[in-house]
Structure formats: structure tokens, C-alpha cells
């Protein structure tokens, strides 16, 4: 594919609001994970909570009000992203800019609150609960399109933890097909009891902090995040999407193929679509959830494609696993690495699992970074690898 310039991007997670907050946290080795109270959670676990956004939406957006859309708006307000989107709208017209948003649970936390408030006799849900504008998976994509006043193709991609990586592929296809001229892509997922207790039921939530690739890793720490990017084929931006790969494991609903064959195919497809050789990749941002199964399978897959020397790390020890937002968060981190010439270490990793032969970074590095791969894998065996690079 022709490299597709990324003319603006922003990210908000437990590391803070906006790109600078992320860069400073990565630089100063400060994880965003905390043991803190969320809602009525009783599980003993670490959380990657975003601070400072939980006020009700302004009156004009009242029907959309829920934690997920609040986080979406807060994310859009960082790094002058609203102005970047407005400039895009002026340049191409509102009908010619698409909106592609990844989420795994959208506003389901609003549904949890509504179920708690249901009528004890009739079981009816409260009048304030509007499914379409909150819980529905599309709600966050529709909300972002409304806030940005864009009327091109709009959709939510919901493939669990690969959702907001796959938006880049979908948007690139739509631009290449002429369905739209440019696109806003992004991902938003917010903390809710559904995912906390759900992942806990699968024994995947660690009571310890998330320690990707550690010999004694115990599972994930759940986080929340919002991130957005502008894909504009005519922009003179320094960083571009070079390629993408999407595959399915065809193995199991909630466990990765232990040999990582789907992950291998996804990384190879990304390299092939970019016409970039494995040796040209300077750094790999791993999916690296901190579960036994994922980190072992992904480590094996990375070695199959790249050998054992390419520096790699998971940044989920910093942000937590932000699920449907993980793809955009890690795409943003990949682009920050290119911008600053930096490779973050696998924070919280004490002793690397001897079974993982990939070159997991235990110390951060300052070094020129031209090309980065970012992996995102999800339940249902949904894999996506993205390749970002400095434009020649």
C-alpha cells in the first residue's frame, strides 16, 4: 500500500491526558496503574483509571451521557484534536470524512447502573437509560461523528482487544476505495464491572500489577483510554501508516493459539502490505497482556517472524490493558517512539520468562526509531498488526 500520512493524533489513558503526559510518563518510568476504588468493585486488582473526566456531558450532548462517551469527549479535547478535525472537515467537506472507532464494551457501564436502578416490581429500567445513545456498540462512533460534525461513513469496529487497531485497516480501505477522502480513527473503552468481573471469571485478572513477559506474571490489569488519529492521504505529515495485517486464529474463543500462527500471519501480512522487511523494523510494541498464554504465544510468534534480536516491549504495565482502546493507545505510543527516538522498557517486568526468547526490553533505550510494529490480539482469535514509519 501507499503510506498513509497520520496528520494528527492524541491519546488519553491512566498515564494522563494527551501526548505530552504520555511522553513524560514513559520517560520518567511512571506507571499509571493504581490500586484504587472504582464504582463498587470488590476485586483485589490494579486499575488504569483516567483522571479528571467524569463530569456529565454538556447539555447539547445530554442524551449521550455515559462514562464511555465522557471519556471520548475528554480524549477529543486533548492536543488540539478538535481543531485538526475541523480543518479536515473544511478541507474535504463533512460528507467526505469517515469516522472509524473501536470499542469492546461502549457504554455498557450505563446499563450496569440502569440494572441496579430497575423497578423492583416491574423490573423496568429507569427512564434515564437510553440504550441507543449509550450502551449500543455504535454509540461511541455516532457520538464522535456528531461532535466532529462529520457525515462520511461511520462505524464501530468491535473485535474485542484488536478493535482500535483494525480501524486503521478499515479506514485505509475506505480511503483507497474512494468511500471517503480522509478519516478520523480512534478507540474508546472505559472501566466497567462487566469486563472486571468477566475477565476475573476467566481467571485472567491479576491481583498483582501487570508484569508483561515476567516469569511470575499473573494476568492483566484493566485500564481505560481514548485515542484518535487523522488519516489524510494529502497531508505532509512526518509519520505514516505503512501497512497492516489482519488474521484470525481459528483456534479458540478466549485463548490464543499456543504456536501463535495467527499472530505470525498477521505480522507477516503487515510487513508484506508495507513492502518492508523484518530487519527494517526497529521496535515492536507487543500486545503483551501479562497473561501466561498471550505472552508465551506472542513471544514465539515474534521470534518466528523477526528472530530473537528485534527490541520489543509491552506498554500494558504502564497503561493497563485498555481492551478495545489498546490498539489506538499503542499506535499512539508507537508514533511517540518514532517522534522522540525512544523505546520504552517493559515496566514492572522483573525477571524475564526464560521461555520467552524475544528481545524484551528491560531498560528503555534512546535510539533512532524509523519503523515500529504494533500488535493487537483479541478474543475470538482476532489479530491485527500495524506498521508505522517515518516518511522518507
Amino acid at each position, binding site marked *: 500500500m501507499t503510506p498513509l500520512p497520520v496528520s494528527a493524533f492524541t491519546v488519553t489513558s491512566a498515564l494522563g491526558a494527551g501526548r505530552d503526559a504520555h511522553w513524560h510518563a514513559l520517560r520518567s518510568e511512571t506507571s499509571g496503574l493504581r490500586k484504587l476504588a472504582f464504582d463498587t468493585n470488590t476485586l483485589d486488582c490494579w486499575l488504569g483509571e483516567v483522571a479528571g473526566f467524569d463530569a456529565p456531558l454538556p447539555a447539547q450532548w445530554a442524551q449521550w451521557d455515559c462514562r464511555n462517551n465522557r471519556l471520548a469527549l475528554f480524549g477529543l479535547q486533548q492536543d488540539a484534536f478538535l481543531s485538526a478535525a475541523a480543518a479536515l472537515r473544511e478541507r474535504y467537506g463533512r460528507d467526505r470524512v469517515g469516522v472509524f472507532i473501536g470499542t469492546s464494551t461502549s457504554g455498557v457501564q450505563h446499563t450496569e447502573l440502569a440494572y441496579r436502578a430497575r423497578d423492583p416490581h416491574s423490573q423496568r429500567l429507569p427512564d434515564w437509560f437510553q440504550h441507543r445513545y449509550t450502551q449500543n456498540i455504535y454509540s461511541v462512533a455516532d457520538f464522535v461523528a456528531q461532535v466532529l460534525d462529520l457525515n462520511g461513513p461511520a462505524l464501530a469496529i468491535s*473485535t474485542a482487544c484488536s478493535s482500535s487497531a483494525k480501524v486503521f485497516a478499515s479506514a485505509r480501505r475506505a480511503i483507497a476505495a474512494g468511500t471517503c477522502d480522509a478519516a478520523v480513527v480512534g478507540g474508546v473503552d472505559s472501566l466497567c464491572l462487566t469486563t472486571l468481573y468477566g475477565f476475573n471469571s476467566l481467571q485472567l485478572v491479576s491481583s498483582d500489577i501487570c508484569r508483561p513477559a515476567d516469569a511470575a506474571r499473573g494476568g492483566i490489569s484493566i485500564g481505560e483510554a481514548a485515542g484518535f488519529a487523522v488519516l489524510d492521504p494529502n497531508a505532509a505529515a512526518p509519520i505514516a501508516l505503512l501497512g497492516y495485517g489482519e488474521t484470525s486464529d*481459528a483456534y479458540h474463543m478466549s485463548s490464543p493459539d499456543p504456536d501463535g500462527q495467527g499472530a505470525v500471519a498477521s505480522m507477516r501480512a503487515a510487513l508484506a502490505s508495507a513492502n518492508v522487511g523484518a530487519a527494517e523494523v526497529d521496535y515492536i510494541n507487543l500486545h503483551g497482556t501479562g497473561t501466561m498464554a498471550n505472552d508465551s504465544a506472542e513471544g514465539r510468534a515474534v521470534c518466528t517472524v523477526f528472530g530473537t534480536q528485534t527490541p520489543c516491549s509491552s506498554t500494558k504495565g504502564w497503561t493497563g490493558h485498555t481492551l478495545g482502546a489498546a490498539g489506538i493507545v499503542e499506535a499512539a505510543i508507537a508514533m511517540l517512539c518514532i517522534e522522540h527516538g525512544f523505546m520504552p522498557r517493559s515496566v514492572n517486568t522483573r525477571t524475564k520468562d526464560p521461555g520467552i526468547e524475544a528481545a524484551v526490553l528491560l531498560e528503555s533505550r534512546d535510539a533512532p526509531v524509523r519503523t515500529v510494529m504494533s500488535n493487537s490480539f483479541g478474543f475470538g482469535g482476532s489479530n491485527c498488526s500495524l506498521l508505522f514509519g517515518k516518511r522518507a
Partner: protein
Amino acid sequence: MSAPSQPVWIEAVGIAAPGFASWQAAQPVLRGEAAYERTELPPHAPQLLPPNERRRATQTVRIAFQAAEDAVRGTSLAPATLATVFASSDADLNIIHRISMALTQTPRLVSPTDFHNSVHNAAAGYWSIAVGARAPSSTISAYDFSFAVGLAEACNLVRIDGLDALLVAFDVPPPQPLCEKRPIGCIAAVALILTQARTAASLASIDCAQVDEAPTHAATAELEELRRSNPATAALPLLELLAQRRSGRVVLPRSSRGGLAVSLDVLDAR
């Protein structure tokens, strides 16, 4: 940046909706040769799932498989080679209901099976396991506009990534008390197989464009009611043209602000 318009070929159709147990059964009704009788379908036992998974399959997975299996019968292409787009407004609200109820109780016992089946892409995951498909797969939501948005995504996979694709649109009614908040009138799914090259089985070529027009209605009051009762059956005006082997243009809803015009060029009836 617009690519030259390059046709996408419709290879096969599948449907599972009230009164329509298969594409073969639906065609005489959609041609106006037989009366439409709105009868609920019995639960489908997905043929492509292993027996254990078949027994445990949710209503959502069953209906998606029923339409997908129906479409696959109309092609000689191996299902393992097809990229997939699963399009659903809400996937499985029965599960969301059970999890939401569990979260109101002490202790909060969420079923692990419910949780892994609660992901929006559960049907896509089961499909890829069932047929051994390692090809790209997307699962999208666009509320009531999910069929047209999924169709556009599938066409882009064909045109830009050069893949043959299976599109499966499906939704099921939520249980009480969610159904008051999200009325979906019936269980239904519609599937299309789209190819980049014309094959011996090709039915028609299609081209899509965004327009500022209201959706096309179905031919009769009964079918119009069906069109409006599930996001998947929004495809009915397109299916009517296909059943009638008639070229033409229909508008399907693609957002609250516009439509997707689908132009159909039907090959001579064989």
C-alpha cells in the same frame, strides 16, 4: 484518491428470518409468486460446528450460522478462504442481560462462558473456528444501519485488499427489560458472498455510493414490516432485486443522516 470503480460480484445469498428458512425458500415470495407467511423459524443447529459447540451455541451464533451456511451452499468457494464481515447492532443482548443481572447480586458470579460469548465478535470467532478460516475478519456495529455499513466494509475488503468475502448481518430481540429500550422485532440474519472476479456462480455485480436519500421500501406491507423489524432485514429491497433477477438501484439506510445507494447489474438469468 478515488479508485476507478471496479465491480464487486455477488456470488451467493443466505437468509434466515421469519417465513424465510433459506434463500431458496425466500425467492418465490420476494418475486411476488408466493404469499409471505410470517412464521418464526425453529432454532437452527449449526452444521459446521462440532457437536459440543453446537449444543452450547447461543441464539445469536445459531442465526448468524444459519444465514452464513445458507450462503455457503450457493458457492463452490471454500469457506475457509473467505474474509468475513459480521455486522450486528447489538450481537447478544441476552448475555448482556444475564451479566448485568449477575452484577446486581452478591456475590457477583459472572459465567465465564457468558463473558467470552459476550464479545461483539463471538459469532465471527466461532465461524472462523468452524470452517478453519484464518483470513481477515471484522465485526462492526452501526445500530439500525449495520447491514449497509457492513456491506460497504465487505466491498472495500474485496476491492482494495483483493479478498473474496462473506458478509453476515444478524440481530436478535433482547429479553425483558432491555427489549423496551431496544426493540428488535424478530430473529434474523442475511448473508452475502462477494467476490472480486466474476465466477460461474456470479448473480450480479454491485456498486455502492453514499447518497442523501431515504431508504427504499419493500414491495408489500408485510415485507416492509419485516424490513423494519431487524437491522439485518434492512437488506430486503436488495434481496428483492436479486430474487427477481432484475437490475436496478435501491437505497439502504447507512446512518441517521443518509443512505447507501446500491446499484445492481444482474447477469442474464440462467
